[in-house]
């Protein structure tokens, strides 16, 4: 029972973390129209930085070591890493969005992510190559003197609080005039520029926010695993997040939770648990992972709007709080009556 409960809470943790990750991708991709296939690069940067900020400095020795380490408390290392990753994402955006059309950008970003991933495997001077970062401290565990199980329950709660805050922020951004400009850019960036919006600036802003969200997710993943290495962010991982966004419903904040839950429970964590406890068959796990591709295809085919479709904002939504304004408009006066 206790083993199952630990598995369950770990799964909830993953659902929460990937809710955060898909919120960020949804903003950049579905709401701003940038096909950011390098999204997992930001997850990885956030994870590495969270690790480095909370680890002590280990000088390079026998191929193991890290460039720097700040020994910061994990709860602080995480947001700090996310801010730095957000700035990094804005910088990358500023460089690549300057000249490239978004469809070329998609290809270039895939290449950039692959090159950096490959580099991270071979370079041992920065973050120990394939060994990666290990022994990333569990935040609060030392202070509160709790064991790993208790820590998992506690930190799932911490992640949930983060997720709620990030969900509220994303909701506020997407409901705002700024979010409307993002959607205008997604629908037609030429029109957005024509009506006076600085498309480049908004694209960079969107990438920055997306990078922040990706990094929070990455930091949580690294802290839960107490490690981060190239196999933690294999190139295909990003497609899981894309699938969560598609299955959940592009442009829908709650849809992202549904997408993350569906994939983690039915296709990732669930099968892993079943495979290791009952079937003892890694093949099953692999098949479940492969089924994600089928899920994406089925979803696009049968329900392209996703589980929770994007909700359009109605006139009533915009006027809701100012009922007096509704009277200034005569809804019955249509063009037919004017004629």
């Amino acid at each position: 029972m206790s083993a199952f409960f630990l598995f369950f809470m770990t799964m909830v943790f993953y659902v929460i973390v990937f809710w955060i990750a898909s919120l960020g991708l949804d903003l950049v991709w579905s709401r701003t129209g940038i096909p950011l296939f390098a999204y997992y690069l930001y997850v990885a940067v956030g994870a590495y930085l969270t690790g480095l900020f909370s680890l002590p400095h280990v000088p390079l020795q026998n191929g193991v070591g890290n460039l720097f380490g700040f020994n910061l408390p994990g709860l602080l290392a995480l947001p700090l890493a996310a801010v730095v990753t957000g700035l990094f994402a804005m910088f990358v955006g500023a460089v690549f969005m300057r000249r490239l059309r978004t469809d070329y950008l998609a290809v270039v970003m895939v290449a950039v992510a692959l090159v950096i991933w490959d580099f991270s495997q071979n370079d041992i001077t920065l973050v120990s190559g394939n060994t990666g970062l290990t022994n990333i401290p569990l935040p609060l565990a030392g202070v509160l003197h709790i064991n790993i199980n208790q820590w998992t329950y506690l930190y799932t709660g911490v992640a949930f609080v983060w997720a709620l805050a990030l969900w509220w922020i994303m909701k506020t951004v997407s409901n705002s005039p700024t979010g409307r400009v993002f959607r205008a850019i997604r629908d037609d960036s030429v029109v957005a520029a024509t009506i006076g919006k600085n498309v480049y600036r908004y694209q960079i802003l969107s990438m920055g926010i997306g990078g922040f969200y990706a990094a929070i997710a990455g930091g949580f993943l690294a802290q839960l695993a107490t490690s981060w290495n190239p196999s933690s962010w294999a190139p295909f991982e990003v497609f899981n997040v894309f699938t969560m966004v598609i299955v959940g419903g592009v442009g829908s904040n709650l849809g992202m939770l549904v997408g993350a839950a569906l994939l983690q429970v039915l296709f990732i964590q669930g099968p892993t648990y079943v495979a290791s406890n009952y079937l003892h068959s890694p093949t099953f796990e692999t098949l479940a992972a492969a089924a994600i591709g089928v899920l994406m295809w089925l979803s696009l085919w049968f329900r392209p709007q996703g589980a929770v479709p994007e909700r359009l904002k109605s006139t009533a939504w915009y006027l809701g709080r100012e009922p007096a304004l509704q009277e200034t408009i005569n809804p019955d006066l249509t063009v037919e009556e004017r004629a």
Partner: protein
Amino acid sequence: MTTQPTTPILSTRELRKSFLGVTAVNGATFDVPRNLITALIGPNGAGKTTVVSLISGQIKADSGQVTIDGADVSGWPAHRISQQGLMRTFQLSRELGGMTVLENLMVSARRQTGENLVNVFLRPGAVKKEEAALAARALEILNRYGLYHLRDSRAQALSGGQKKLLEISRAVIADPKILLLDEPMAGVNPALIEKIGEYIIDLRDGGMSILMIEHNLGIVEKICDNVVVLAEGRTLATGKMSELRENEDVVRAYLGEVINADNGR
């Protein structure tokens, strides 16, 4: 009326643009006077749409100069030219398809407090208030152009004629000094053509300056104060429609052809 001559709201000087060796615009030079409706006419492929895109910054000119209200905007990016007080519509309507009709207008309004995220979080009250007022203004414009009943529809669901009206509404909410219309009446039924003509005249009477591309010379004669003729990327002539009918170059290059086509109908 002042006795002093006013500078044109818009002028182009020696605009040139070629695409992979095809010269689309080849020295277009003309002025658009204030507070009038100016027609930009010329045969298919004369470079009219390209000229409009060069003025509004969607396409970068190879050379030449564009002045808006006295400011040299040559080489500026589209959004800055727009902010200078210029709006345009597209020959093939470009609606923001995934957004509602109401939002298509709201997003187009100038200087919104909530377009800065700092304000979104630090001054939510001001942003909310501005949004409601903006929605009300957008609804009035939709009502004026007969789109009120479509306010909450996705813009991609609109018909061709409705999209033309949406493009005009979206430009109008920004209250531009100069409005460029690329064939606002193409593919629209005769009753709506009449209406759009009235809308354009109303905008001029409200103080706007307008440059519109139009093939139908009957409409040009009826609603335009001034005409610029473009042929092979060059300004062939400018003046009143009645004067241009006397101009042999113009008749040879364009009018003769169109008049014959009109008779053929």
